[in-house]
């Protein structure tokens, strides 16, 4: 498969050996690499062993590292996160897998009570360096609760980082950085693009910062803020409209790279947010508020949000009507371009 991701200079390094891989393979290779690099890294979850995960993200790890480092668990998200927190308190570096973001709700208690609070309530004494991998997002005709993009619950929560890659290159660098970081991280994997094309990725390990947005495409007229599976739609829309569009991949959803976001919006004077989560209180709401609070006098148009609707994820036959796509992103860009005070 040819390389379908736009590869800006920052994602190309000809001095390194590279391999063409898709996003889920990048996750898999990163897990292999981090487990080889650090004996303290263990992975936990169900179906992660012989089967290699329902999406094959953990394929081959059990054979290589054994069942004390690849821990196939009972079907209990609360049990997985709760015991992973305990293991982390004992000095382990655990990477639990929650099979689908919509399965994380049983674990919400442990996430809220222990995972995100431990560092604060011990005055910084106890670190909980978990990277909780969760496949998220719709568009794959899956069952209910298998299509969720409910990152807002975690974005609203202090004490945890939320990270979301949009390319194989991003996935590898961000996952390695998350695993090595001493904060807990919710690592959202856009399953719609797990196998959505390959990209040339360095075979050596590298990390990407967890607090920086990524400039995907430079432009002068309007800024599109987006992340994950929606980045490709934003890029396609920006190429289809009659305007110079800057696309920023938020990448680190919490904490936000406010500086990059405001700098871009102040430059272009217009802002569109494209996300697949429900609109009300989705991250777009925070981004819009941010722009209003700190860049109002530079705005040439209100911020518009091209998002999912404020409804439960619908059945298969209309899920494409729910999900934002290139067309919806394009409309939002054209709307803010057409606005005059």
């Amino acid at each position, binding site marked *: 498969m040819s390389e379908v991701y736009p590869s800006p200079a920052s994602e190309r390094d000809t001095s390194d050996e590279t391999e063409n891989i898709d996003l889920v393979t990048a996750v898999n290779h990163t897990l292999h690499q981090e487990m080889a690099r650090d004996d303290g890294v263990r992975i936990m979850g169900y179906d992660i062993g012989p089967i290699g995960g*329902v999406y094959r993200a953990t394929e081959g790890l059990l054979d290589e590292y054994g069942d004390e480092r690849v821990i196939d668990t009972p*079907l209990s998200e609360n*049990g997985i996160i709760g015991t992973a927190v305990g293991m982390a308190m004992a000095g382990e570096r655990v990477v639990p897998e929650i099979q689908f973001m919509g399965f994380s709700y049983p674990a919400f208690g442990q996430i809220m009570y222990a995972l995100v609070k431990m560092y604060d309530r011990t005055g910084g004494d106890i670190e909980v360096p978990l990277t909780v991998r969760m496949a998220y997002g719709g568009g794959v005709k899956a069952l209910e609760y298998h299509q969720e993009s409910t990152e807002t619950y975690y974005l609203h929560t202090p004490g945890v980082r939320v990270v979301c890659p949009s390319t194989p290159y991003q996935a590898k660098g961000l996952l390695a950085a998350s695993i090595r970081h001493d904060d807990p991280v919710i690592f959202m994997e856009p399953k719609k693009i797990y196998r959505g094309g390959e990209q040339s990725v360095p075979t050596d390990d590298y990390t990407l910062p967890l607090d920086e947005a990524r400039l995907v495409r430079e432009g002068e007229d309007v800024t599109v803020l987006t992340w994950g599976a929606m980045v490709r739609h934003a890029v396609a829309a920006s190429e289809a409209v009659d305007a110079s569009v800057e696309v920023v991949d938020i990448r680190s959803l919490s904490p936000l790279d406010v500086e990059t976001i405001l700098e871009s919006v102040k430059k272009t004077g217009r802002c569109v947010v494209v996300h697949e989560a429900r609109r009300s209180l989705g991250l777009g709401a925070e981004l819009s508020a941010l722009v209003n609070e700190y860049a109002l006098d530079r705005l040439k148009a209100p911020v518009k949000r091209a998002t999912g*609707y*404020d409804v439960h994820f*619908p059945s*298969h036959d*209309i899920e494409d*009507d729910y999900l934002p796509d290139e067309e919806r992103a394009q409309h939002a860009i054209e*709307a803010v371009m057409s606005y005059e005070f």
Partner: protein
Amino acid sequence: MVEWTEHEPPEGKYQRLDADGQLDGDSPAFDDELLAMYRTMVATRTLEDKMLNMQRSGEASLVARSRGEEATPLGCAAALEPDDWIFYTYRQNPALLYWEYPMAEIVAGDMGAEPETVAEHLDTDEPEVNFSPDYTPVGVNTTNAVGMAMADKLNDHETVTMAFIGDGSTSEGSFHDAMNFAGVFEPPVVIICQNNQWAISEPSHRQTGAETFAKKGEAYGVPHERVDGNDIFAVREKAEEAVERARNGEGPTFIECVTYRMEEHNTSDNPDVYRDPNEQRDEWEEKDPLDRYETYLREEGVLNNDLAEEIEGEVNEQVSAAVDAARDVPDSGPERIFDHQIHGEPWNHAHQRAELEREQNGQNPFTDFDGEGFDE
């Protein structure tokens, strides 16, 4: 060869019908239903095989079959009476078909239609037993079932609630909460663990350190049974006892039905990756619930070749009609997205509905700049 994936030897369960189709003890009390139950098993296999074909050809999205496990949901559901409730998950088609849940609705749901669209376009009767919507998240239904049974007890209703879960579900917190409440409040609930020994790729010994799943009832003060889940007579007998106890105000029962998942978890799963397909297959084929039952019925003279052919023909016709009806359900209108979110229509829904309509018409949905509608 690993015969059992949990911790108890095979003999530790209640059985009436052996693998050769020989019934131990008295004839069952439900003689008049013997053929109806046979028919339900045949119908389940025919329907699920048809749905599998539809999935392979892209018509249906995802299919979870109950092949080899039919006796458990069938025998348990058959123990209920009209107006009782079933809280099921995704491997209980025999329970649905026994109570004449509309087959076309099962197919249409699997083809991905919104429930409102299905209800509008299928002429279907309500089954005599009430069914909750099927639950995808594991274990959640047990707590809801206990709550319904608690309400029935508080209101002096005589209905019984039955919940179906798999072995993996007993690891989830909701299951433990349900069992604890059931033990404390003693509502008329029967919780069935359909232990098919696999939760996708996880064998059942990865779900519990207990000798059996049935013993999970012990700590909660909930009476429990362990039954050969491929033996329709044993399953039905124990389920009837539990239902009767519940209806008599004697509280909950937890029943583990030991069976085996012969095929994949669902059509997005490939079990060859994590289990040797031949490891237990022959053994469990010998224990097949339909074969055993059919042998018994033939030996009793209840079933013969002509009758079997007649039933097969009827079932094929019924499945074809259901598939045709389901295929006639049109795609949902996109505006269905907003149906049944909450009562009434708040501003955000009204506004987003208008946006969606404009998008469908090729117009720009983002040109409302004052919150009052759209400037054309």
